[in-house]
C-alpha cells in the first residue's frame, strides 16, 4: 500500500475541548462561518451522555476523493507522496460542487474568496517536518497522524457510529471509540 497520511481520532482520549478547531482557525484565519475542523458531539444514542464524547473531524483525505472526482476544473489533487488531498484555491471557480458532493462536508464555501476550501493536512507544515496545527495543539494526544500503510491492526475502526459509511470514497480517518466510566449516581 502507498503511503497515506490519516488523522487518528482517539475518542477515548478526546475531551471535546475544541482546541484543535481553534488551532486551525488560528493558523488559517478562515472567514466567519468557514470551519475546516469541527468537533462533533456524539448523539446520546451512540454515547449515552450528552456532549461528553466527540469526533474531531476535518477532511478525511480519502483514497477516492469525491471532491476530486466531481470538481469540474481539476482544482483538487491527491499528493503522490502522502495521499494528502489538496484544494488549489487559485484554480477553483466556486461552483460548490465539491461542497455539495463530499459526504463528510469537508470543503466549505469561503464567501470572501468566493471559492471552496478545506483542510489541507497543513501540507506546507508536513513538508517542513512539522505536525499539522491541529495535531500539535491537541492537549491529550487524542488527535494524531498515522500512515495507513504502516498502521498496525488494533482497536481503531474506520466507520464508527456517527460517521457515514462511504466505502467507495474510502476515507482515511481512523477512530478509537470512547469509553464509559462506572457511574454511581443519586
Amino acid at each position, binding site marked *: 500500500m502507498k503511503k497515506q497520511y490519516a488523522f487518528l481520532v482517539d475518542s477515548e482520549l478526546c*475531551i471535546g475541548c475544541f482546541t484543535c*478547531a481553534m488551532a486551525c482557525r488560528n493558523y488559517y484565519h478562515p472567514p466567519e462561518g468557514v470551519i475546516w475542523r469541527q468537533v462533533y458531539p456524539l448523539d446520546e444514542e451512540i454515547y449515552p451522555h450528552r456532549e461528553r464524547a466527540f469526533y474531531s473531524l476535518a477532511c478525511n483525505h480519502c483514497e477516492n476523493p469525491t471532491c476530486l472526482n466531481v470538481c469540474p476544473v481539476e482544482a483538487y489533487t491527491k499528493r503522490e507522496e502522502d495521499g494528502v488531498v489538496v484544494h488549489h484555491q487559485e484554480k477553483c471557480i466556486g461552483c460548490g460542487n465539491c461542497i455539495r458532493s463530499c459526504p463528510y462536508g469537508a470543503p466549505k464555501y469561503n464567501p470572501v474568496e468566493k471559492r471552496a476550501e478545506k483542510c489541507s493536512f497543513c501540507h506546507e507544515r508536513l513538508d517542513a517536518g512539522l505536525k499539522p496545527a491541529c495535531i500539535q495543539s491537541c492537549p*491529550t494526544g487524542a488527535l494524531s497522524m498515522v500512515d495507513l500503510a504502516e498502521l498496525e491492526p488494533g482497536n481503531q475502526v474506520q466507520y464508527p457510529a456517527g460517521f457515514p459509511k462511504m466505502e467507495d470514497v474510502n476515507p482515511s480517518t481512523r477512530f478509537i471509540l470512547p469509553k464509559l466510566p462506572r*457511574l454511581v449516581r*443519586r
Partner: protein
Amino acid sequence: MATNKSAFSRRSFIKGMVGAGVAGLLPCRFLVPQAQAAAFDPEEFQVFRNACPRNCYDTCSIKTYVKDGVVRFIEGAPESTFTRGGLCVKGYAYTRRPYSPDRVKYPMVQDGRRSGKWRRVSWDEAMDKIARKILELKEQDGNLLGLGMTKYSGNFGITNYAVEGLMSSLGYTTRFVGTPCWPAGIDAQNYDMGNMWCNDPEDMVKSKYIIIWGANPAWCSVHTMKYIMEAKRRGAKVVVVDPVFTQTAAKGDVYWQPKTASDGALALGMARHILDKGMVDRNFTDNHGLGFGEFADYLRGNVTVEWAAEQSGIPAEEIRQVAEEFASADPATIWIGYGMQRHTNGGASVRSIDALVAMTGNVGKEGGGARYGHLQTWGFNYNAMIQQKPEGSVGFVGGAAKGEFDFTSGSEASYSDRTVNINKTAQNILDTKDPALRMLWVSCKNPFGQDFDRPKLEKAFDTLEMVVTVDQFFNETVANSDIVLPVTTLFEEWTVNASYWHYWLGLNEQAIKPMYEAKSNIEIGMALSRKMNELSPGSCTFPQEPDTREWMAKEFNQGIYDLFGIDDWTALKNGPVKAKLASSASWSTFQFGTPSGKYEFRSDICKDNGHMALPEYMEPRKSYDKFRLLTPHTKFAIHSQFLNLDWMQEYDKQPYLYMHPEAAAEKGIKDLDMVRVFNKVGEQKVVAKLTTNVAKDCLLIYEAWFGKGSTFNVQNLVDDESADMGEYKAGAPGVAIHDQFADVEKA
C-alpha cells in the same frame, strides 16, 4: 510563481491596511491553501515569547509568530513539558483578540451610564477628568478613601500590580480585597499544612490512584489531563467526584455524583472506614501529624459510613470500596477543585479531604498529595505594586486586610488603606461611609460579569460619582462606567507570568505595537501620574517613566533566578523554564508551615479564627428555592473573557440551561425551549437543553459573556453569601457560588 505573487500582494495590502489604522477589519487571509505553497519557513516570521495571563491553572507559554507587525498565529511553547507545544481553545483565540473590531480603541467618555453614548476623548482629556476628580475627592473628604479600586485576576501578568501601585502612589484608598475564586481552600490548607502548596502536576503520572474532587480539568486545565490519562494508562484508577457528570468524569474509571456540598461528609465517611480497617499510615500521623488521635476520636464518635452515605447519596458499599482502594494505593492523590470549596462549608470540606490524604500518608509524597494550588514561584519584587504614599497622605486607621497575592511585608504606618470584601462589592459600595465611596477604579476585573447579585450591583454603581474602567471590550461593567481606558492585550506589553498550579515561568514580550491607543496598566499609571503632578505637584508618586520592558525587568531578583536556574530574565527569551524542584512533591521534607511544624489535624489557628479545630463536618447551606443552581465555567471562556470573540462564537453561539429530562417533564419544558430561571436575586432567560449529566434537583448554566448585544449574565441569579473560610489568607471570606438555588419555568 503566480500564486506566491498574489499572496505577496495580499500581504502588502494587509500591511497597508494596518498602516492606515483599519486593522479592525483583520483578520484577513494570511495563509491561503495552495499546493504550490512552499514548505513552512519559520524564518519568514519574527518569533516572540508570550504567556497567557488568565486566571487559569495552565498559564501557558506561547510562541507568537509575527509578520509585518501583525500576529499571524501562535502556538504553545514546545520547551514546556506542561503545555507541550499546545494551548487551549481559549488560548488559540488570542490571535484574534488584539484585532477584534469590538475592542475599546481609544479613551472614551459615556454621556450617561448605560446610555451607550460613547464619545472619543484624548488620553490627556481622560486623565485630566480623572485627576481633577481625584483631587476634588481629596479636597472635599480630606483623604482619598472615597476612591475605591477593584481588581482581580483579569490579567495576572506581574506588572499589572501597577494598578495597586498606582492607588498607593495616590494615597490611602479603599481596596476591594479577597477573591471569589479559591480562598476557603487556601485557608483550609494553611490551617492543615501551613501553606497552600501542591505537588508538581506533572508527577501525577506516578499516582496509582487519583481522585478528582470537584475539579474539571478537561475544561479548566486541559494540559493536566494528559498526566491523568498517562497515569490511567499505567494502571492507576481515576475516580471523579462531582455533582455534574463533567467531561472529566466521562474520562474516569468511576464517577460519583454526590449531593452538592456533601463533600465533607463523604470524605469523613471514607476516613472513618480507613480508620476502622486499620489502614491509617501511623508513621505519618505519629511523626508528622498533630492531633490525629483527636480526629480519630471525632470520627469514631460522630461519623459512620452509613451516615456519610445518607448525607452524600453515595452508597455505603461504594464509599468503603473506594476508601480501601485509596488507602492501599501507593501513592494516591486527591485533586481538590476550586468548585467544591465555593460553599458555606467549603473550607471545612477541604480540611476533611486534606485529612483523608494525610492519614493515608500521601502528603509529602511524589505522585501523592492533596493538590489544590501553590504560590511557590511568585517571589517577584512587586516593584510596580510597592509605591510610596504622597507626603501627608491620610488614610484609614485600623489596619488593612491583605490578599493572597499580596507579598509585601507589613507596613508600619499608622494609616492604612481601607479594605472591604470583594465578594460583597455591591453591598460595600452601598454601605461604606465616612467617607462614602464616590469614585471607583476598575481594572483587570469585570464586576458585572463576576461579582454577585448583579441587580444590586447596578444600584450600587449608580451611587458612585465617577467610575473609570480599564478594559479591552465594552462589557457590562464598561456600560456602567463614565470613562473607559483601552488596555493592552498580552501581545502589546511586557510582563512575566507564573502559575499557581505548575512550576513553569514564562516571559511575555511585547510582540506588536499596541493597537489603536491602548496602553498597559503601567503606562496608564504613568499617564495619570504625569497629569496629577501637573495639576497638583507631589500628588502622585507613581514613576512617570521608563518603558514597560524596564518595569518588567525590575520584577526579577536573585531568588527567582536561583529557583529557576537562570542568570538573568533575558534567558526566558529562549523559552519558559521550570523551577528546580528538590522533589516533585510538596512537603517532601515533612517540615510543615504550621506552628507545630507538623500536619495539623487539629489546628488551633483555625479554632482561633472562629472555626472548628478539627476537620469536622459542617452542614451545607439551606436551600432557598426549588432547584440547586450551579454556574461553573464553560470550556469556551474564562468568566467574561473569550466568548465575546467572533472566533469563539463559531463554536459556541449561545448560552444554555442544562436540566434533567425528568425535572423538565414535570415543568412541561422540552429540549431547546426558552425558559426563565428565577430566584430571590433576579432572573435570566435562556434556552434549555435536557441532559442526565445534571442531577434531577439541579439547574446548570455556564458563566459567560457573549459580547455586545447579549444581556445574558448568570450573576442575575447568584447572591453574595460568604463561604466559611478565606479571611485568614485572602483578606475576606470566599463566596458560596455553588450554594445557589432557583426555580425555572417555560418562558
